[in-house]
């Protein structure tokens, strides 16, 4: 009953901030980051289907509202704006507050998000994954058009992982903090989700068409390679992270050399254990260094 009563009321209150999607089209920066968790088409019906108990707001004729962005899109805009303040404030509510201020909102808008900065980190990871997908897609197109050579698998993996890890470089100082927050229980499901879909993506573009146990093995192995390389990168102080890329090269070579299935299964287990051990070490050293400060 309530749902039917509310729409006319909503129509009277023109939203103060949520703007027409047509305005958004003029900002190329904003629109690229829209394909996030929910993969909404930005043009039409931002939120026609009511999500949960919240009534979706329909205008007087049901037409005006279709052009307004939803709260989620506004939240994404705020988080994107907040990223530039992360090097200074870390992955915190303060960075989000600064981001909100650049959009002309009150700093109190940061109250929409969890105070530990989880959403900011997840947003960033999701953004990076999207960028990686686009990059790999473009490379694939070039190969299909015959303008580039198809890379051998080991080089492909190396390049893909390197490209993805390079996106962390502007935030590298605060990244250990982000990793430890991602390991908090309430963030593990989303974090793992993003990680596995990224690894999936890489293998997909690498041309993996396996439908047997190899599918799991390949993903576990690449996940292990990615995680360990990421941890090495945190502690790397060589120019342009050369040591990290060399480490990556070696790990990928090891993976390629795994012969029989038995070997693979054993190495998978090892890779997973290594990844977990490395994560535990990094988290504890990040925690102690934070406590010391």
């Amino acid at each position, binding site marked *: 009953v*309530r749902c039917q009563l*509310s729409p006319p*009321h*909503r129509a009277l*209150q023109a*939203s*103060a*901030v*949520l703007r027409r999607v047509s305005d958004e089209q003029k900002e190329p920066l904003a629109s690229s980051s829209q394909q996030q968790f929910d993969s909404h088409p930005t043009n039409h019906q931002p939120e026609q289907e009511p999500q949960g108990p*919240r*009534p979706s707001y329909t205008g007087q004729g049901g037409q005006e509202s279709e052009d307004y962005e939803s*709260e989620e899109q*506004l939240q994404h805009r705020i988080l994107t704006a907040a990223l530039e303040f992360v090097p200074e404030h870390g992955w915190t*509510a*303060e960075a989000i*507050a600064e981001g*909100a201020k650049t*959009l*002309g*909102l*009150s*700093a*109190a*808008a*940061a*109250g*929409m998000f969890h*105070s530990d900065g989880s959403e900011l980190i997840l947003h960033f990871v999701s953004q990076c994954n999207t960028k990686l997908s686009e990059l790999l897609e473009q490379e694939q197109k070039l190969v299909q058009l015959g303008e580039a050579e198809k890379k051998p698998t080991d080089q492909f993996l190396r390049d893909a992982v390197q490209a993805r890890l390079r996106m962390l470089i502007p935030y590298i100082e605060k990244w250990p903090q982000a990793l430890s927050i991602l390991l908090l229980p309430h963030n593990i499901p989303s974090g793992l989700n993003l990680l596995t879909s990224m690894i999936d993506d890489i293998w997909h573009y690498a041309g993996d068409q396996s439908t047997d146990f190899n599918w799991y093995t390949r993903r576990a192995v690449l996940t292990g390679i990615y995680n360990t390389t990421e941890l090495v990168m945190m502690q790397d102080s060589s120019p342009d992270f050369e040591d990290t890329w060399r480490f990556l090269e070696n790990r990928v070579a090891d993976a390629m050399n795994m012969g029989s299935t038995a070997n693979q299964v054993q190495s998978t287990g090892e890779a997973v254990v290594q990844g977990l051990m490395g994560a535990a070490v990094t988290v504890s050293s990040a925690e102690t260094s934070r406590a010391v*400060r």
Partner: protein
Amino acid sequence: AAAGLCPYRALLARRGGALRALCGSVRGLAAGPETHFGFQTVTEAERREKIYRVFESVAKKYDVMNDSMTLGIHRVWKDILVHKMNPSPGTLLLDVAGGTGDIAFRFINYVRSVREHQLQRKLRHHQNLSWQEIAESYQEDKSKSLGDSQVVICDINKEMLKVGKQKAQHLGYSEGLSWVLGNAEELPFDDDKFDVYTIAFGIRNVTRIDLALQEAYRVLKPGGRFLCLEFSQVSNSLLSRLYDLYSFQVIPVLGEVIAGDWKSYQYLVESIRRFPPQEEFKAMIEDAGFFKVDYQNLNSGIVAIHSGFKL
């Protein structure tokens, strides 16, 4: 003094409902529609009058009664409210029905400690400065211990404001506070001014809650937050029975013994029962135009914090 605040706003720009409320509030004129005062039925004009007198009479013992009725737990509730707000230095807070200043003082304390942390962190990063430079930076920062944060305490009742001002002086709060006499249904402030609007244990005493919510929406900046701390419905049935017993048998007696005023506390207990439950109040807040409206129950629903954003 509160900066940038507009004088009394002309009502004509507002909707017809507000005009009706204005008519109702002028004493001796048209009585206005029927409403409730506790479990009695009265007109809107009478209700406002009665509530004003209730708080006029309890003002001096307000804090003492709060402590004895809730066994001091109201302090925890108010702490939780300010923690949820998580204000950063530079925030402009409007505390409506804030009479004796509880929320305002907590806000000031919180912002002060956040500011101290900020300054400490800044110093740590500048460890390569000379001694002189560090001493100079102390001078600058000392003058901004609150980081430009301000709280405006607005209440309709002169007595409550008086008690609040005395308390502030007594506890040593001097800067960052402003005291304004005003009606939540018709705030004497301009649009888009405040970062946060709070109303703690006040909104159930407002006669036209919808008007108060609309005013809250109006005076908040885009992105601003609405926070309401109020008694609400208890979900657990056993607890609910104990709570009813306590409310109706113990509280008015306490009121008589401590404040010499049975009737006012009878009103208080009844008004809690008359206030809409969590979901209904959430719907009212959404109707006023707020987004991302949510509530958090404290003590199984004895008290609830509702939050909404002006987006």
